[in-house]
């Protein structure tokens, strides 16, 4: 935001060494992000073909010495007409939004607790938040199968306590998907929230109390507005990967759990329809970019009013 003023001339003043250092990440991004993205974008305008790779090339140069460039829009029109894709998009956004909200409700008190804990405790608590990352994501999601299954420890405990008389069906439900999502992405929520809350000057809360605010009121009038940036960052970090999540709905969800990541996977690997899978990916990307742009607009408007 604040760098836009210097952007025009920053390159001119740099010597070769600096350009080289700054250039490396750009080359990296171009090679491993931009080029693949363009390839996916290109494939999305192709059509399937029984070949290797299984797509019709966009450019053909036949024996008749004609260079042909064909752009198939059929994938996009197909997606627009088939309600399955729309439903999958809508359901993904819904699941991601609910998971983000749950992660926020759970993560905020956690982050608050860590930020206000005695200094010597903080690093330990912090480690506990990050500790799950030491194990593979896939393994952790699979572990939930064991925990949630009919004969798993959760059902066994509830049965023993007499709370339930029949094992609960938890696996292959939306509940399991939400659980997996919140569990997996919670650290991404806690970390930015922690750094926002930690920066908050405790004397501001004392000032609010001094001016007549009870603790809950002070939270909504002071703490929440002053940590809004952390909230936004945490929500984006959870929401973005959640929308396109494949593993969690595939492993924990049932056949009814329709998510766009899963649709994409099936188109790609089961139907071997690369072009359709690519157009789903492009649309997913556009959806997320649109979401981020809207949020940033809101944020910069807030910043401007400050």
């Amino acid at each position, binding site marked *: 935001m604040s760098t836009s003023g210097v952007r025009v001339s920053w390159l001119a003043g740099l010597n070769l060494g600096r350009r080289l250092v700054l250039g490396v990440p750009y080359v990296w991004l171009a090679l491993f992000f931009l080029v693949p993205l363009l390839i996916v974008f290109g494939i999305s305008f192709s059509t399937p073909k029984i070949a290797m790779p299984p797509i019709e090339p966009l450019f053909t140069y036949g024996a008749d010495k004609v260079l042909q460039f064909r752009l198939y829009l059929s994938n996009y029109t197909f997606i627009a007409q088939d309600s399955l894709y729309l439903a999958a998009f809508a359901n993904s956004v819904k699941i991601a939004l609910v998971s983000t909200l749950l992660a926020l409700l759970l993560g905020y008190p956690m982050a608050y607790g860590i930020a206000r804990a005695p200094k010597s405790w903080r690093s330990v608590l912090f480690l506990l938040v990050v500790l799950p990352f030491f194990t593979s994501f896939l393994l952790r999601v699979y572990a939930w199968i064991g925990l949630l299954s009919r004969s798993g420890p959760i059902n066994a405990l509830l049965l023993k306590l007499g709370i339930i008389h029949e094992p609960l069906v938890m696996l292959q439900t939306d509940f399991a998907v939400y659980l997996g999502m919140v569990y997996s992405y919670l650290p991404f929520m806690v970390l930015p929230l922690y750094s926002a809350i930690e920066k908050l000057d405790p004397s501001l809360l004392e*000032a609010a109390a*001094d001016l007549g605010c009870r603790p809950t009121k002070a939270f909504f009038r002071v703490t929440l507005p002053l940590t809004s940036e952390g909230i936004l960052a945490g929500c984006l970090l959870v929401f973005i990967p959640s929308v396109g999540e494949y593993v969690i709905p595939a492993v924990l969800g049932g056949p009814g759990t329709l998510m766009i990541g899963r649709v994409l996977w099936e188109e790609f690997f089961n139907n071997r329809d690369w072009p359709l899978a690519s157009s789903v990916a492009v649309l997913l990307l556009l959806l997320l970019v649109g979401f981020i742009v809207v949020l940033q607009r809101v944020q910069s408007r807030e910043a401007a009013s400050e």
Partner: protein
Amino acid sequence: MKTEPGPASVPADNAAPYVRIDRVSKRFGNHAAVQDVSLDIRKGEIFCLLGASGCGKTTLLRMLAGFETPSSGHIWIDGVDVTNVPPYDRPVNMMFQSYALFPHLTVESNVAFGLKQDGLPATEIRDRVADMLAMVELKGYEKRKPHQLSGGQRQRVALARALVKRPKLLLLDEPLGALDRKLRERTQFELVSIQERLGVTFVIVTHDQEEAMTLATRIGVMCAGEILQVAAPTEVYEYPNSRFVADFIGSVNLFDGRLIDDEPDHVRIECADLKHPFYVDHGISASPEAQVSVALRPEKISLSREEPPPVDGLNPGENTATGVVTDVAYLGEVSRYLVTLDGGRRIRVSQPNLHRHAERITWDERVWLSWDASAPVVLTQ
């Protein structure tokens, strides 16, 4: 213990206390931050808690605000026991050392914060905020955010925010600490004039004795969690009740001595650092031969090149000393001298520079020191 004559203008001691701190202690673990402090603060006065950092003055202030609960003892404000009342229910407001302005709110919203919290009608809030901002001379800054203000302006926003709720008691934690010298001096007088206009009782915490002397109606000197002396600024300076107070407030020469002549109207104190005893023109209550301290302020000592004339009633040489000037600092209105006495003891002396053209006493000169019989303060604590 003190039987010395009091200062000329004694503040009305019989005025009913507005704030009563009754045997209040505060312990954090094993550390006693405030120990058995009792203190009465009168309505409409500016009371300064003065002490070095870590003396417990801020803890005491925070107990008045309600941020800390006393481990024992009680606090009354205007006849109401507020010992266990939370800060949001106290008729008290505080100006924080860091100002603690809400960074996400404008100047106007910062000042209106407490009034909105009380659910006052919007028009009244607007009027009161406008009045308060006019008083602290911040008209035209209503829509600014705290980070767009200078230190002095922030300080005034903090003051306005604390005063707009018309508290019974305003607590100020090092109110001028973050300002530069020039601004401090101006702000000191502004604070006093605002306080006089509104009649709000101020309790100020400071480590800066000059600030305390300028602002305070009365000063409470604190050390290690206890209040050593409560008195008007002149009294604290001229009649300190202990070695610590004498040493803490201003500059002083302290002597250890022994009471050798104890009469109702005068005493003599023998001191190893001086050839002749001190003659003090009033009686003190201490046992004969008692070990006492004598405090002598630098400005109460006269320097001369010639032997001072003898004084009636004093034995020759009493209340005088001789030595050599070791150091001189010319500060404009006064000059400060460091004189090494013949016995080796170094004494601080300050002399007003009354004349522009004068042969001032300078380095390595032999000088006579003399002082009035009323100048030494005898301390038994």
